[in-house]
């Protein structure tokens, strides 16, 4: 540690510092954290660039509320699923709030992810070198929508049941692979108890795992490549103005070098220059 020793250290503080140093020596967390937090980002970074982080936080909120819901939810088609949802909504302390946050959070996440994508698109932030950041993001969008699709069935009410029957039929109607995809989603040729457990595990384990993985990749690209600068940041506008000036200047120079051009003293009135040409 760089702090100067003035007298014996508080043993607790010394112990903590030693422990951190011990872990850092082996894992590099301190260096890594410093590298992550104190990397430079362009000066003009805007409020619109907070939407990706917001999507991440909403995903975290969905994970937490989802884990709480999973403590009470029963994937049972014989009324158990429906009753457990009723129980969460009406009996469990704060259950209605957790369910409400999870349900609204799904819509909020879709909206935030779309807005984030719109900002990336409008800024051309997917261009070199960030093409693969966009590709991982596109998969995140699809996975987020799949999350909504699979979660919808879990309440096992009429509306959700039939909407999901239709949605699965849509997948099953695809040529060649369709029937297999349909069987995989339904866990057989018919909608039934196995379908619900399958949707439950896809919604709780498969997609969240995939989203976490893709967020990891997405972040790796972002940190490695740096967050892009707004195409109309003050710095960019200044450079563009300078370039424009330089271009004009060059054009003027070229005009002067043309045969027949006369070098007039700059004090001459403009009209005189024009008529003399």
């Amino acid at each position, binding site marked *: 540690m760089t702090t100067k020793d003035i007298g014996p250290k508080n043993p607790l503080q010394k112990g903590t510092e030693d422990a951190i140093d011990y872990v850092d020596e082996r894992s590099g967390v301190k260096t890594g954290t410093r590298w992550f937090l104190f990397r430079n980002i362009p000066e003009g*970074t805007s409020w619109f660039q907070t939407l990706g982080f917001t999507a991440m936080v909403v995903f975290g909120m969905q994970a937490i509320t989802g884990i709480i819901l999973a403590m009470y939810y029963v994937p049972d088609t014989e009324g158990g699923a429906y009753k457990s*949802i009723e129980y969460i909504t009406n009996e469990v302390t704060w259950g209605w709030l957790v369910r409400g946050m999870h349900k609204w959070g799904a819509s909020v996440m879709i909206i935030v992810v779309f807005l984030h994508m*719109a900002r990336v698109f409008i800024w051309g932030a997917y*261009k070199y070198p960030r093409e693969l950041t966009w590709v991982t993001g596109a998969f995140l969008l699809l996975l987020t929508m799949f999350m909504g699709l699979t979660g919808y069935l879990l309440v096992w009410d*009429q509306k959700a049941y039939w909407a999901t029957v239709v949605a699965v039929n849509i997948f099953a109607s695809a040529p060649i692979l369709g029937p297999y995809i349909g069987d995989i989603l339904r866990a057989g040729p018919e909608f039934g108890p196995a379908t619900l457990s399958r949707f439950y595990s896809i919604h709780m384990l498969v997609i969240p795992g995939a989203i976490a993985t893709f967020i990891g990749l997405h972040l790796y690209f972002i940190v490695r490549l740096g967050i*892009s600068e707004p195409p109309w940041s003050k710095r960019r506008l200044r450079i563009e103005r300078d370039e424009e000036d330089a271009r004009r200047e060059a054009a003027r120079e070229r005009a002067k070098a043309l045969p027949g051009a006369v070098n007039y003293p700059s004090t001459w009135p403009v009209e005189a220059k024009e008529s003399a040409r």
Partner: protein
Amino acid sequence: MKPADKKAYDKDYAQAKKTGKPFFPYAIFKDTIVAGLVVVATIILAITVRVEVGEPVNPSTTDFVPRPEWYFYFAFELLKIFANQNALTPVIMATFMVPNILIILLVIWPFIDRGPERRIWKRPFAMGMIVLVTGFLCYTTYLGANSPGGVGSGGLPLTGLDEAGTAGMAVYMANGCASCHMVAGVGAPGPGPDLTNFGSKGWDTAKQVAWLKAPNAPMPSYASLPPAELESLANFVNGLGTKYK
């Protein structure tokens, strides 16, 4: 982008980074504020607009619509656009071609739009795309939000209903056919075709039962209905427009 453009970008970005500021605390500060506001907004929504528990899954209730979450309305509307068309634009367009083309476009977009220009007003093609796609999504979501809701248990305005016809109509209403098919102006205008004059096709009972057991997607299979109900339903549908008008 040409190698020279890439080099110019790298150089420019390095410059921006050099004259920039650290991620912590500047970016983190803004991020936390926006994310915090969004989480608070979600909690407020959850408190003010309570989620309900819908009807339990039960084939004998009469009014339900296969309605997806609002962010899938566009897909259902797409189905309706293609459902009542001829053989040239079959349902496969809506269920397979269009969505997959959109998804592929989404994934490979950075490899299509590769020019060095980043200012949106100098990228008319990209600008056109975003206006088109946003407009389409907003419009179809709006249509989905305003499509007819539950059909109710009132039955269909048909004449000539005998005892068998009434029984068949009850099965029809109980199984959500009306949420995809229209008969005599009652029911959703899609994704299934209008069945008002279906009888004129002259299907027999066996053909209709076979269809109901194994229809084309996205229509669900009704193979799990009791055989008596299936038969009664088949006779009812086959009589639409001829016996029952």
